[in-house]
């Protein structure tokens, strides 16, 4: 047994990370969140652009989508005979973890799951959205929508980079979609932990870095513990592909992402509460992802039922 990443898996992770840093680094993220201010008729910049929650719906970067397609992001698990990369769930999880770390927007999971089924999805030519739980992400930007979206109602989305529609009837959850979402949550949790640590090392108050204060230190330590628990659960679920392992992974990854972003905000103090900070984007995305597929209550119920079955089989 060797649970650690293989050299190939490390290389894949590094490759995806490098691609995303180059193509969707911090500046691109900010540009997506804050479109440039509109220029008035006199040629001077008007008031600050209609950025943020009251701004226009986010647009999908089609060129980036195609680049992801070329890099094999969507065709990762498609067999080579069908033009795919021929890798497995563990590799997909690593790629989605990096997407979560970079806050990469778009219906990534829906398009990935459509590769091989919807023409153009594998290459990134076609953007696919899907009903997941009672929500559809990126409905207006999608070329193809899977699931019943009649009577879909647009929400004013909390995450500026995740346009949302609510649908009247919930779609049954797909375990692989739940796992890939967990991987994104894990990546986001890792990122907010790193951001908090970085801030705590450098921000000085009372004549020393705030990270020297035990109260701050302990917030950071608990963030890491949640990340490592989630990482173990998510990676193991990718290996076993067991629905209950996936349910457990989702619970822990959702917790790591949501609480991690919240604690990261706290460590950043007043700076964390500003629109300029990256932290709120992680928190809002984590909330959005947590609504995908089966909710926490359903996951807990499934695990409880499984536990009872297991206990009755192994019991005295």
């Amino acid at each position, binding site marked *: 047994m060797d649970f650690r990443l293989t050299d190939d898996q490390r290389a894949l992770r590094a490759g995806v990370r490098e691609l995303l840093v180059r193509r969707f680094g911090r500046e691109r993220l900010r540009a997506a969140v804050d479109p440039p201010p509109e220029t008035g008729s006199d040629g001077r910049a008007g008031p600050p652009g209609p950025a943020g929650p009251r701004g226009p719906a986010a647009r999908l970067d089609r060129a980036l989508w195609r680049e992801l397609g070329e890099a094999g992001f969507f065709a990762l698990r498609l067999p080579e005979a069908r033009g795919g990369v021929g890798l497995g769930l563990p590799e997909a999880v690593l790629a989605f973890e990096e997407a979560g770390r970079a806050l990469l927007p778009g219906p990534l999971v829906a398009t990935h799951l459509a590769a091989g089924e919807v023409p153009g999805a594998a290459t990134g030519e076609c953007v696919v959205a899907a009903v997941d739980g009672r929500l559809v992400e990126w409905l207006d930007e999608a070329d193809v929508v899977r699931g019943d979206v009649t009577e879909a109602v647009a929400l004013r989305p909390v995450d500026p980079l995740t346009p949302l529609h609510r649908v009247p009837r919930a779609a049954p959850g797909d375990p692989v979609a739940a796992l890939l979402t967990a991987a994104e949550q894990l990546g986001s949790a890792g990122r907010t932990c790193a951001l908090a640590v970085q801030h705590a090392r450098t921000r000085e108050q009372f004549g020393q870095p705030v990270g020297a204060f035990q109260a701050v230190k302990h917030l950071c330590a608990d963030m890491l*513990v949640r990340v490592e628990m989630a990482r173990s659960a998510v990676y193991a679920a990718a*290996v076993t592909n067991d629905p209950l392992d996936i349910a457990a992974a989702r619970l822990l990854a959702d917790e790591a992402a949501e609480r991690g972003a919240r604690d990261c905000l706290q460590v950043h103090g007043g700076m964390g509460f500003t629109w300029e900070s990256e932290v709120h984007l992680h928190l809002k995305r984590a909330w959005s992802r947590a609504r995908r597929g089966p909710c926490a209550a359903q996951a807990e*119920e499934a695990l*409880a039922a499984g*536990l009872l079955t297991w206990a009755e089989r192994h019991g005295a």
Partner: protein
Amino acid sequence: MDLSYPAEDEEFRAHLREWLAGVLPALPPKPPPEDWPARRTYDLGWQRRLYDAGYAGLHWPVDAGGRGATPTRHLVFLEETERAGAPYVGANFVGLLHAGPTVAAEGNAAQRARWLPPVLRGEEVWCQGFSEPDAGSDLASLRTRARRDGDDYVVSGSKIWTSHAEVADWCELLVRTDPKAPKHRGISWLAMPMDAPGITVRPLRTLAGSAEFAEVFLDEVRVPAANRVGEENDGWRVTMVTLSFERGTAFVGEVVACRRVLGDVAREARENGRWDDVPLRRRLGRLDAEFRALWRLTQWNVSEAERGGVPGVGGSVFKLRYSQVRQELYDVAAEVLGPDGLDLDRQWTADRLSSLSYTIAAGTSQIQRNIVAERILGLPKGR
């Protein structure tokens, strides 16, 4: 990422399972927790059986009398013994998990030959003389002093929270050998025979009502200088080796045991009607997720240790979450039991009380968080 065990480890598992099935039904009943001499006999008897069957010191190096098994195989051993409900390591805890590995890693040839075989054969019990009344989490503040006199150290002071002290043959003792040195230096690691004149053991009653540990008073106790493991005044480094064993591997088998208890709690809830309580049922499901993840984190740490040898600070991450989740498990168990959750005759009630020590023993959760923050995350030292 590979979670399957090598064929030879699966073969080992099959043999172990067969052996356990044969030997466990013939085991005498477990003695009551208060009867320390009986517990010593019981635990040493189990250790002897393991030794005779070739399972003693599985993870110890071969030149220390062990079997040199990989961490993965040791994991299989812990999995199977816990699943079969085999006796816990018990009074052999310190010898097998702290003092033995420390002597194996840091001791000289004579020390290894003297102390390691009796631990493996189930002949001698060790206790841990680290903590003092004024040196708990701040262990380096210990004041028990050892003055060199000829070939001996003369030791005076007191130790506290010393488990198994009444029935131990040896004590792994931390003493101050240079009072003028900075507090982390000037400490030495000694093996003290518990029958030496000048030692008084006074049992302490825990909040669980049992005498789990003791105070040990040392009045001019003579310990041969040859019993010092490592260099004089280098005891802090030796101790860090010991603590990394304690934090790294000591709780592995318990995760399996906790999952079994969680299953029993679920069954109990089904039988007494509490299963219909939705929030309670959801808490059980959430705990199942926690124990699944703790097991996977264990496998992750074992995979890391397979390369590194001595377990690292990753054990602190595990211990922080495990000690907390273990307490939640017995809180839920009490919830399921209802009024019986206040009955000390129910095992889970006693276990709920003893679980309160988990966030304190072997470094409090607060100290573990400092370790994680400073040594893994690289945050600055401070207050």
